[in-house]
């Protein structure tokens, strides 16, 4: 959600090393970053602040996951990969290797997924073509599963608690 | 020359489950089984052997014509297809066929009498088929069932 960018960032981890000069802090061990509805988890998280003060984070894990509520809908976006890079300024998330992103019930699976929250544009590469990072699982194919389109009538009905 | 009288009554089973009974030989077959000491059981589980009559077909064809195109001889064919299952193995046996053939001379001026002869030959052909089927049954040596029959 756009509002996330103005929210304070809260970080938990087993240990942290801060390098004030380069404005890089490295959190490792059960790292959990929350900023408004955005939540990133992983084994290791490196946060870098650029000149304009935007935060750029790179989390790695087996896997590392992120979760964020989408604008103007109570649907959540979730994703998981071996490495997730978040560009605070562009509000863009990139997932590398064994990546999958789930939006509502639909899920897409590939080797590299980039998701631009502001323009709501996502791109998934199967690693067949210009693979970012090493070739992922699934022989370089992107797979997306789209759930049956609910008839418009029932989706407006209040969805019962899961 | 090696022939001896047939030995013990060689129907080697007591209970038969008969499937596919709306065929013309069903009544004679049941009577023949009964008189050979074979009981018909209502369910396959109680049976020592299962016999399924798959189909039967009867045909009457013109066999010979006279010079003026009149029918001189008719041929009667009868065929029954069946298969046998030994309760101890899962699969049905290969379908087997018993076929009979008769022919009789025909004369249009004795139509009713020839209809009587045709009926007699048809009955005789079916009686032969039942005898052959009984012989096929007498050759079967069903192995006792592996699972105890469901009481």
């Amino acid at each position, binding site marked *: 959600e756009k509002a996330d960018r103005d929210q304070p960032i809260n970080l938990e981890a087993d240990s942290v090393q801060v390098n004030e000069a380069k404005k890089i802090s490295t959190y490792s061990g059960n790292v959990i970053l929350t900023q408004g509805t955005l939540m990133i988890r992983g084994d290791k998280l490196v946060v870098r602040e650029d000149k304009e003060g935007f935060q750029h984070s790179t989390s790695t894990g087996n896997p590392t996951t992120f979760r964020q509520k989408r604008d103007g809908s109570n649907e959540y976006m979730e994703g998981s990969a071996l490495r997730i890079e978040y560009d605070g300024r562009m509000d863009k998330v990139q997932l590398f290797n064994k990546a999958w992103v789930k939006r509502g019930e639909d899920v897409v699976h*590939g080797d590299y997924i980039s998701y631009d929250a502001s323009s709501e544009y996502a791109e998934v590469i199967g690693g067949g073509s210009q693979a970012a990072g090493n070739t992922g699982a699934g022989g370089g*194919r992107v797979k997306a599963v789209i759930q049956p389109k609910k008839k418009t009538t029932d989706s407006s009905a209040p969805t019962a608690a899961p | 020359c090696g022939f001896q009288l047939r030995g013990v009554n060689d129907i080697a089973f007591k209970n038969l489950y008969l499937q596919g009974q709306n065929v013309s030989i069903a009544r004679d077959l049941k009577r023949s089984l009964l008189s050979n000491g074979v009981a018909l059981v209502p369910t396959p589980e109680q049976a020592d052997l299962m016999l399924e009559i798959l189909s039967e077909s009867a045909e*009457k064809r*013109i066999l010979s*014509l006279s010079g003026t*195109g009149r029918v001189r001889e008719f041929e009667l064919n009868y065929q029954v297809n069946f298969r046998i299952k030994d309760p101890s193995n899962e699969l049905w046996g290969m379908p087997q066929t018993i076929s009979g053939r008769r022919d009789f001379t025909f004369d249009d001026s004795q139509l009713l009498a020839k209809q009587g002869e045709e009926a007699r*030959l048809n009955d005789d052909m079916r009686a032969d088929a039942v005898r052959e089927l009984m012989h096929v049954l007498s*050759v079967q040596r069903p192995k006792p069932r592996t699972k105890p029959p469901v009481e």
Partner: protein
Amino acid sequence: ASDAADETARPRVTEASTANAIAAGGALIEADRMEFRMDRRLDAIGNAAIITDKQQISGDRIQYEELNETLRVIGNARIEGGGSVIKGPDLRLNMGDTVGEMKQPIFFYQPAAPAAASALPQTATSNAIRSNSRPLRNRLTKSAYDDSNKGYQPQLRTNTTAASRGDADAMFFEGQNKKRLTNARYTTCEAGVDDWYIRASEMEIDDFNKTGTARNARVEFLGVPILYAPKIDFSFQNLRKTGLLAPLIGTTTRSGFEVLTPFYWNIAPGMDATFGTRLLSKRGLQYQGEFRYMGETYQGGNNIEYLPSDTSTGDNRYYAKLQHQQDFLNGWSAGYSLEKVSDDNYFSELSTRITTTSRVNLAQQASLNYADDVWDFNLLVQRYQTLGQRTFPYERLPQLTLNGTKDWEVGDRYVNTNLYTQWVSFNRSESQPNFLATPNGNLLTGVTGRRFTAYPSVSIPFTRPYGYITPKFGAHHTSYQLDNTDFTLNGVNGEYQSGTRTLPIFSLDSGLYYERNTRIVKNSYTQTLEPRLYYVYIPNRDQSAIPIFDTALADLNTSSLFQENQFTGNDRINNANQLTMAVTTRMLDARTGDQRFAATLGQRFNFTEQRVGLPGANLRRGDSSDIVAAVTAKLLSKWNVDAAWQYNTYDAELVRSNIGMRYNPEPGKVMNLSYRYTADLLDQINVSGQWPLSPRWYGLGRYNYSLEEHSPIEGLAGLEYDAGCWQARTVLQRVSTATADANYAFFFQLELGGLASIGASPMRYLERGIPGYTRSGEIQSSVTP
């Protein structure tokens, strides 16, 4: 390792989750690369595919607009599903209502293979109704023989396993199972073989009913348009389809060139009708109609043919057959079969099928039957239309027959009791005197009357594994009430008398079973030797005052050798004090029990003169009957042999000698040879066969020559070419007919992948004329490994 996995189960794209997503109506999309614009457009690039439960659509690039559910495939578009594959440069399709378009489509259709065709040999019943598709399955067993003029046999039949393909300028998807093609071509030839096409400016395909309709269609065969039809209906999978059928073309000397254009109407699942107009160059336009129906417990067929003012004879000519059978399931069943034809020469002049040209008596009958484990009851009302004869069968108005058989357990033995009773009223219309040519002059009489017969009998079988003895005691009682009882036999007048006839009948049947095991080549057999003695005693009663209603002397063969009464029917009971001796040997497969070979030799010794005979017939001379022999064999080498002889010991001459051999190694290869001789009745040789001349050509032939009449009775020569997706057959036939001189008929039939056959159908003749004949189109599919 981190335990950072959060509680929510990570949704993995596993086969299981994908499968039930698809099953629930969702879709799996695959590609090398995908771009999503949330809720607006998905762009899958790099051999993309979208898989739903109905079908799989693939192409170089797939764009899917989720809002309006439209799908665009750019490059190598391909839709696969429901047995069909459609390929084209690209595709536009709305997934919601399946509306869309594809340019330059190529399509292939492979119907799901039918359930494994049962391996049982199919012998078609002689009067099975063969329609242009699956015959209406005939569940009620046919009792009486009622082969009759089948009328038209539509021949549009799709070989269920034939694949079909085609192309078009454009394909429009118009709803769930509806497609429309413009400027389309359709064939069942495999890719690369373009021998024939149905070319249509427009073609509608209904995937649900597996049918198609081609508008202003042309059938092109080897590039030559051979058939134009404003509308052609066809079905993909041998389903009955209403519509215009391919016309039948033929020529006969008697009726000239004929073209029959049929229309098939598939009224309902168990009901169909065929209407046809048959243009006969020498006679005019004949209308043909067939209406058939079938249900769980009933079935019926009605054929009508009407030829107004035949140009050759000037009068209206018609044929009608109405038939119905009903099973009431509680043992009762009933039916009627009524047949009528306008004039005596109808069949021989208007039909070329032997099974019809040879018909002389057309039954008009109704029957009511009951059967259970003990009783058999039959009520029959029957009369005949007789064509061109001086002998007319008696009308039975009605005949009631009741027969009961019951086994009783007495101690450890069974006793069988049988009661046969019949009451019948024999009538005849004045215009039809009974004229019977007998060996010693003619019998002319108008006698009618009512006859009651009762024949109770008891038999007590003493059976052992090695043999049996079965005495049988019975009393045969018959009583007659006769009207207009005078007759003239060979010029001498006489008179039948009402009265009764009661005879005791005693028979003693006995037999032994000898067995031994033998081996032939590598198979082990049980060979049996079964001597049998059969004694019959029936005292003599003078029966010359009893008329002949339904009685004649039965053929002497291995069946009648063991009958009490050599006469069929109830008007004559032969006097008997005779002993029949016979021996039968059989070769039975030791493992399966199948009978491979059986031979019987028998003779009857008469200890009294024959004193009961048919009017004007010669009585048997001498004390011994003829020697009768019969052999039947089904050899593993695919040879079937059936032979029978009858030798008269008194005159030391052969009365009957029939030898028939059939060699049928595999479908499409059959040879039948037979020599049939019956003293002063027939003396014929008969050769028929179907043999492959080369991988694609088959020769067909039948030659039936009467040595007695020194002339051919039936000749048939034909060639059949099988090009895989089409078959052509041509047959020339010479048929001698009952009421006119020989009739030559020429047939040509072109069968396009079983889809539409053009040309008069010689099928009926070939199956009757060449026993074991297999249509070339079916030979490949039936030669299964």
